[in-house]
């Protein structure tokens, strides 16, 4: 695993964060609405914090279990392959399922953090990060027979899961926040309905593409 590959993976973590942040479905319109409702910009920024927190948690709950799985060092290759296939499968499911999300509509508007968490989980946003995360994970213990070594790998990888989630969430909220501020301060609400593109197909395709890349990378 060379440094160049590592850098590319980190850039992918940041790029996926930017992508999620730009997607109106991940919540930047909520920040605009909050700013307008309260008639003060600080309400817009106040809404960004729970949105980022919810997104961060949604990444963490997906990445941490995969971090635990890295303890199974001998199955490392199979785990990566299975993860990639899951990501592809969820992409295909989302492509086929286009119904209005009723359950998510039950979340009260005041619960922005919960909303952000549930939306990210429901759309498989965390899964998009899994192949990148697994690529960044440490897999080679210092000694194959060293139990403590395996534990330290897991500890490292769990820490890495939190770091990846955090970097991704920061990139996500920076991008989403920038759009929200642009709409609130400069472009006006009419942009909202004009620039809101249906990303459903593209989103499902992104999951499939990331999964396929991971499959190719694991060959």
């Amino acid at each position, binding site marked *: 695993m060379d440094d160049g590959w590592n850098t590319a993976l980190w850039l992918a973590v940041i790029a996926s964060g930017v992508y999620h942040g730009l997607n109106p479905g991940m919540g930047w319109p*909520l920040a605009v609405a909050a700013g307008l409702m309260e*008639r003060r910009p600080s309400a817009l920024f106040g809404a960004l914090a729970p949105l980022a927190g919810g997104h961060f948690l949604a990444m963490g709950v997906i990445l941490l279990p995969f971090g635990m799985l890295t303890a199974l060092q001998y199955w490392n290759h199979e785990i990566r392959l299975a993860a990639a296939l899951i990501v592809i499968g969820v992409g295909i499911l989302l492509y086929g399922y286009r*119904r209005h999300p*009723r359950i998510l509509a039950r979340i009260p*508007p005041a619960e922005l953090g919960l909303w952000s968490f549930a939306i990210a989980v429901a759309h498989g946003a965390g899964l998009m990060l899994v192949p990148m995360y697994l690529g960044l994970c440490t897999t080679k213990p210092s000694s194959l027979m060293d139990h403590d070594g395996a534990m330290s790998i897991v500890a490292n990888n769990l820490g890495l899961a939190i770091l990846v989630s955090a970097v991704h969430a920061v990139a996500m909220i920076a991008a989403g926040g920038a759009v929200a501020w642009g709409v609130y301060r400069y472009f006006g*609400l*009419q942009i909202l*309905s004009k620039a*809101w593109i*249906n990303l459903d197909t593209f989103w499902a395709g992104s999951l499939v593409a990331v999964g396929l890349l991971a499959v190719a990378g694991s060959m």
Partner: protein
Amino acid sequence: MVQRPDPTFHASPKLASEAPPEKFAYTLLLSPDFSKPDALAIVDVDPSSAQYGKIVHTVTMPNKGDEFHHFGWNACSSALSPLTGHAFLERRYLIIPGLRSSRLYIIDTKPHPTQAKIHKIIEPEEIFHKTGYSRPHTVHCGPDGIYVSTLGGAGPDGTDGPPGIFILDCETFDVLGRWEIDRGPQLLHYDFWWNLPRDYMVSSEWGLPPQFENGIVPEDLLANKYGHHVHFWNLRARRNVQTIDLGANHQMALEVRPAHDPAREYGFLGVVVDTTNLEGSIWTWWREGSEFRIEKTATIPAEPADPSLLPPLLKGFGAVPPLITDIDLSLDDKFLYVACWGTGELRQYDVTTPRKPKLVGSLHAGGIARKAALPDGTAFAGGPQMLEISRDGKRVYVTNSLYSTWDDQFYPEGVPGAMALVNVNPAGGVAFDKTFRVEVPDGYRTHQVRLEGGDCSTDSFCYSSA
């Protein structure tokens, strides 16, 4: 697959009012003696069109006796809610409940209003079976589907259990079931509306089916047995959080009109008649913290009249009650229009200060005793009843029938269908348009009007205009 939000979805009321004006109106036609099927008339309201003021298309239903009343869209500006993330519905289908039959018609208005056709019919049995409700009425597009209020519970006369709201899937139009988890003391229903970002609903009360289907029941009215409560609900939790009694003499609390701008946490409610003095009243409700308050902010007195001019129902009173049967609020939350169906008056109030409505405009048409003709001399039977304001606030469309059996009691000589247009002076003041007059087919009455691209009593907005 829709790739962009419907161009008729607007984030804020201000954007909606700046959008191109309506070119078509959808008007419900009802056969008051149930001898013909009810229908949806598509009226050309584009002043530059050669067909201006004409019914250019009619969708006639396959059943009789539905009694059309109110209706709504499958999707409106609420689809731009920042919470949905999927703004890709189309404002395409009109949901028309048969208030008497409990049947629901889904009308497809695409590819063009003049080609509107029936898309789906939901038979009454399905609604009874899946919801235990009957007599569907108000339709609004909500967070988890299309909300439909009902006036009746189960059983043949709709009195077996209280009425409430049920949900329709906004894409398949499947009846999904009851909305309420905890209705609290709510036992009657009529209208409802909400503030989506602030997550509350307001609902009102008319009466149970035996109190309206065969006409108004004078004994019930004088015994104050019609609805006089207003209910406030936690929308997502689906719970009644507060019920306010307006006082039993304030009979029939009908239309609920919240401010369109969601940052404004107030709204209006019209009460048909006060049984102590026959006056009609406008109430303003508002929220203070977690408490809702309401107070009577305008009254319209009854007008004394020669008993010989009055129908049997009113002879003993020697007066005509104004009968506030509809109110409608312009998208800028500035003007509240009030229909006084009994006295034949349309009033325009400036409600910039919501708890101090100021009367700034008035005109007369019809009326039980007054029988005012339109300015060009055309007769106007009944009185101004359903009102629909254009999104830009410059026009108000007016129809004249209330409800088949009630029309016959208050206007025994009949209420031939009419649809008129009122032009609004932006500074206040209203006047009938002298050229717009719709020729309603014989034997039909007119009820609610919906406007192409949305109007002032359909769309819910999720962003403040600020």
